[in-house]
């Protein structure tokens, strides 16, 4: 470690501050990435616990372990925590912060101090959300959507939850802004837009959605806050307001938000697939542009969450059509990934398993999304557990598995340690089986009419609920296997020195494990694209035998 002065890792260098301040006041993008990682995993654990308790409650009809009010609060908190504190920051703020500057050959992001500020805002918002649980009045029970008029009437602590979401939105905007400027201004010499790794492209598309959509939810939640606090007439139908308008404003952000969640996960998968099949990515530009297309179309489909509220038929048809259109760029990505695997020399290490898990689960989630996009079917399954199954397949099976894939892929680079590959694979399969056991029955019972967010249900649904709850246990075992594997690796004394374990061709594999403060000794000059495997053409021209 001491052979060269530059090789002091980002974990070891001494800056102005010491102790914990060396972390919480650090402007190093890598340290901030880790701060986000720790915070978001903490909240992930809380969210999983809430989900686990809800599933346990639903194992049998009637009251099992909690009353209806507690159940309502649990699904609200589960939603707020998972969405705002885990899934949204999970990839951009954690891995985007850590790897975006390295991937494009920069020393840091464009505004390091702003970056730190957005972490602090994240923490502030998270604290507010936590406080709302313990204040008298009880945690919010509106669902994460804060629908009017219940969110003005509910006597629970809706206000802190609203303000928390507002602040978290601010944090997300600042991260997005930082990434856009970073990508425009900080690329290494020679790295044109089309020589950027595709994870950077997906972060770029995401960042635009972050800064253009998030202010809408910000102002909307602020208006609800003002309405609750001062009794100003804005959305309350008793004062002439329009609750449907609130829903529009809410989904104008919250639908694009799912693309904030999924796009970076797609970016991670795009990084992993070529590396583990040792082939140049198929259709680089198509993947890059499909990210932008998803961001664009995804911003115009929000009202498909509201097909039952009584919009005009014309509007419904348009939104339904646009919803179908979003599937095209997503499908382009899936086909390109599969085409990249074709004839590749595939190593099925844990990161690739997670990436393939992503493709499988995301495809199920995506196709069921199309089913919901059809107007007539939507009437049938609106507000049923079919929807719950769909978005868990996309958000957890998609983004969640994307985050796990990123963790397995970049773990040796971030910590200079290596986890046990066999355990990682066991963890994956347990998670995968648990996931499907947990969520697939929800499709079935939703189709049969099981409403979502219900504390109780008719006896004919019990078998599905029972299977689903068993699935949640398997899933949690999988999570425990995965995280103990990581923790064991972190605690082991042997440091891992191979700087390019997967033979990747992107820049992060050229810097030492646990990269030093400013990543590069000398900023590299880029001459080739990111995934140019030398024998690619050879493989492709080889005759099938």
């Amino acid at each position, binding site marked *: 470690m001491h052979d060269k002065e530059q090789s002091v890792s980002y974990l070891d260098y001494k800056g102005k501050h010491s102790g914990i301040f060396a972390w919480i006041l650090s402007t190093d993008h890598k340290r901030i990435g880790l701060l986000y990682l720790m915070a978001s995993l903490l909240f992930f654990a809380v969210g999983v616990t809430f989900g686990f308790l809800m599933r346990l409650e639903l194992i049998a009809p009637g009251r099992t372990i909690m009353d209806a009010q507690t159940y309502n609060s649990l699904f609200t908190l589960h939603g707020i925590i998972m969405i705002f504190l885990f899934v949204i920051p999970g990839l951009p703020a954690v891995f985007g912060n850590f790897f975006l500057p390295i991937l494009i050959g920069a*020393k*840091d992001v*464009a505004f390091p101090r702003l970056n730190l500020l957005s972490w602090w805002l994240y923490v502030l918002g998270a604290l507010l959300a936590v406080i709302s649980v313990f204040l008298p009045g009880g945690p919010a029970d509106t669902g994460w959507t804060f629908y009017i008029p219940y969110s003005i009437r509910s006597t629970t602590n809706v206000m802190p939850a609203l303000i928390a979401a507002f602040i978290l939105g601010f944090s997300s905007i600042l991260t997005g802004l930082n990434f856009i400027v970073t990508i425009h*201004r900080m690329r290494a010499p020679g790295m044109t837009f089309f020589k950027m790794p595709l994870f950077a492209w997906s972060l770029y598309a995401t960042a635009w959605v972050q800064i253009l959509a998030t202010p*809408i939810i910000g*102002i909307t939640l602020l208006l609800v806050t003002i*309405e609750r606090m001062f*009794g100003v007439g804005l959305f309350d139908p008793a*004062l002439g307001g329009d609750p449907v308008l609130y829903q529009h404003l809410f989904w104008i952000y919250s639908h694009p938000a799912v693309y904030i969640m999924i796009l970076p996960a797609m970016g991670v998968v795009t990084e992993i697939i070529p590396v583990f099949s040792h082939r140049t990515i198929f259709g680089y530009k198509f993947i890059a542009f499909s990210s932008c297309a998803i961001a664009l179309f995804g911003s115009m489909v929000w009202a498909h969450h509201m097909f039952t509220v009584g919009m005009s038929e014309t509007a419904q048809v348009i939104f339904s059509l646009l919803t179908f259109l979003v599937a095209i760029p997503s499908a382009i990505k899936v086909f390109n990934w599969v085409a990249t695997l074709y004839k590749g020399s595939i190593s099925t290490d844990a990161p690739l398993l997670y990436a393939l898990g992503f493709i499988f689960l995301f495809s199920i989630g995506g196709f069921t999304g199309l089913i919901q996009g059809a107007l007539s079917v939507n009437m049938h399954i609106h507000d049923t557990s079919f929807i719950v199954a769909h978005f868990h397949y996309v958000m957890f099976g998609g983004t969640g598995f994307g985050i796990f894939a990123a963790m397995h892929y970049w773990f040796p680079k971030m910590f200079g340690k290596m986890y046990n590959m066999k355990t990682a694979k066991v963890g994956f399969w347990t998670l995968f089986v648990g996931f499907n056991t947990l969520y697939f029955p929800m499709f079935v019972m939703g189709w049969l009419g099981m409403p979502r967010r219900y504390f109780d249900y008719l006896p004919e649904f019990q078998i599905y609920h029972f299977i689903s709850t068993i699935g949640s246990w398997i899933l949690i075992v999988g999570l425990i296997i995965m995280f103990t594997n990581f923790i064991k690796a972190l605690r082991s004394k042997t440091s891992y020195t191979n700087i390019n374990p997967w033979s990747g061709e992107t820049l992060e594999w050229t810097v030492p494990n646990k990269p030093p403060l*400013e990543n590069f000794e000398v900023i590299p000059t880029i001459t080739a694209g990111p995934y140019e495997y030398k024998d690619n053409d050879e493989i492709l021209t080889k005759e099938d035998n």
Partner: protein
Amino acid sequence: MSVVAEHISEHVHRDDLGSRMGIWLFLFTELVLFGGMFLVYAVYRFTYQQEFHVAAKELNTLIGTLNTLILLTSSLTMVLAIVAIRKDNKFLSIFFQVITIFLAFGFMVNKYFEWMAKIHHGIYPGSETLLAKGNGEILFFGLYYVMTGLHGLHVLIGMVLIGVMTRFTMKGTVNSDKYIHLEAAGLYWHLVDIIWIFLFPLFYLIT
């Protein structure tokens, strides 16, 4: 340690174009933020055209016009402050910045009297006088208070920002070579101005 210190000083890189880009992006988010409110306004005005028309008569067009003049002039003085610092005239720049703050203060004073007069007449959220009116008027005044209120908040933030810039200019942190911070504050100030340019006709001139 010295290696580290060197690193840190290297770390502070300067990229005015990047900063400018960051500011513009931030201003976009502000526009979208207010855009959300303008959308709410548009929907309700479409639903309650007549009542919006009646309610707008309660607003004081004279104060509104005066404030528009004040704010537009302050945008001019802000630009002059930036031109002055570019020409290395520190004193003149400080002078124009102070004038800008002064004008902003005048805007807020007017706003204060305007709101107070309304409240005196019993028109404020939740008041009996207001609740006795039709739904459209309740919404109009709800939006009036919220939108001009949030705009006022932006004016206050702008005043603080320009105040800090005046301090920077005095210290020499903002100078003819490096005035990006002042420029940022200026852009922010123009945003405050442009939002008012839309608020003014939508609330005061629709009678």
